[in-house]
């Protein structure tokens, strides 16, 4: 929160030795095997790893949608016990309410906040404008393209002003062009507001472009394999992808992920 004066040493999110074991009919499956990670306030952290390694499990635990088997997750020193509007999610499948228009989808989370109707409308208008969907405010999700749907989902998550934004492969279902467009938009928004983001992807280039730190996860049962600082200055643009530092970091991370991918195949 704003009153936090202890500075960067006091992380906003503390994931402490988290283990997650699923009980299935074929026995226990360990998804996370002692994951520890701190996320600072205003930081943009990307998590990459081979598919099925437990990235989403970690995100769901952070959101409070799943419980840890062992270990602890603290957000602002408070243990996470369940979902809360302090931690917003953007899902890969958009998860828009199909019976609500664009503006009502964006305003959904505001209904639970103590706001005057005027404030509610102002906030909604602000985020509709942020994602550039003024023309479509009265449209239903079925009338929107995939990219537009995801813009609505991002605006909806932002509108409730969460402390932490969790993004679960949000651009995974989009075509390449739309994806790079939305990456650029997200980047611009972050450069303006510095909302703390935890972003899951399997696209290494996306991770390097967006993040300040890229966290690489191992195969299941997942551990944190390596954390790479991305000290490429902001603002970053499409041209950033061409810089040698960017390419080097991308290759470094990609080789780490690839080793895990090969190990998984065996």
């Amino acid at each position, binding site marked *: 929160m704003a009153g936090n004066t202890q500075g960067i040493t006091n992380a906003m999110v503390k994931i402490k030795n988290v283990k997650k074991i699923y009980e299935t009919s074929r026995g226990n499956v360990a998804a996370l095997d002692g994951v520890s990670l701190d996320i600072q306030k205003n930081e943009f952290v990307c998590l990459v790893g081979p598919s099925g390694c437990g990235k989403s499990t970690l995100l769901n635990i952070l959101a409070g949608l799943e419980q840890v088997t062992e270990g602890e997750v603290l957000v602002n020193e408070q243990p996470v016990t369940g*979902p809360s509007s302090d931690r917003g*999610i953007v899902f890969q499948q958009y998860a828009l309410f199909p*019976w609500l228009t664009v503006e009502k989808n964006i305003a959904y989370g505001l209904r639970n906040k103590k706001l005057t109707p005027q404030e509610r409308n102002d906030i909604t208008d602000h985020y509709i404008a942020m994602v550039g969907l003024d023309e479509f405010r009265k449209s239903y999700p079925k009338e929107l393209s995939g990219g537009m749907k995801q813009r609505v989902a991002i605006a909806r998550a932002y509108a409730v002003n969460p402390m932490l934004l969790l993004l679960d492969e949000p651009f995974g279902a989009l075509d390449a062009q739309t994806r790079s467009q939305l990456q650029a938009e997200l980047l611009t928004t972050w450069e303006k507001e510095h909302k703390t983001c935890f972003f899951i992807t399997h696209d290494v280039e996306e991770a390097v472009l967006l993040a300040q730190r890229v966290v690489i996860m191992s195969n299941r049962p997942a551990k944190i394999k390596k954390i790479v600082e991305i000290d490429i200055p902001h603002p970053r643009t499409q041209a950033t992808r061409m810089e040698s530092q960017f390419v080097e970091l991308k290759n470094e991370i990609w080789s780490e992920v690839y080793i895990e991918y090969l190990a998984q195949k065996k």
Partner: protein
Amino acid sequence: MKKKTRSRSTVLYSVLSVVIFMAIWMFISSTKAGRIFASPVRVVEAFVKKAQNGAIWIHIFSSLYRALSGFLLAFACALPVSFLMGWYRPFRLIVEPWVKFIKSIPPIAYIPLIIVAQGIGESAKITVIFIACFLVMVIAVYQGVVGVDNTLIKAARVLGSNDFQIFYRVIMPSSLPHILVGMRLGLSAALTTLIAAELTGAQVGLGQMIQEASMYFQMDVVLLGIIIIGIIGFLLDRMVAVLERRLTGWQETRKV
């Protein structure tokens, strides 16, 4: 422009459809089969006669009253039961097998049982219609409740909704299309069961009118009764269709 010509051709074909159908009917009634298939003219005459002495309205009214009260009672009970089934596993495991079992029995089979228990008054008929409608609707609505996209529930939760809000802001609207399908199925079950119940014993009602007329070989009245039931069924179905268009236009549907 194109839309206009298209709607005009739709009207044209609808008129053509009625004309062809009436022609076939007139033709059949002019042959030997005419003893059974009264001509449209005779059916209209029968209608005018029954409308003048008011008998037809009493038949229509009492049939509609039975069908709709059975249907509405069933609707009111089916909603909470199907939502409970979709929400609480133990409730579903206890209730579902019985719903499926009784639904597989044609109502005609248990009509005599209910008539013996409740007599041939109104309550017996409403009970039969209630049972048939209830079972059909419970199954349809339950499908909707369990079919709610789990990600939507998660999304609502992280946007700050509690269980109760999730129920009426996510589960309810999300199952609305299935509720309307349930209403359509329920109405058609109501009509089917109504006539079956009235044929087995009633003082008034369209089913009774048909039954009585057939005993005196008044085939024009029999046909009249059949057609009125058809019209009622058609109109009720259209009414739900209008509701459907107004309430669930947000659904992704393919265009035909």
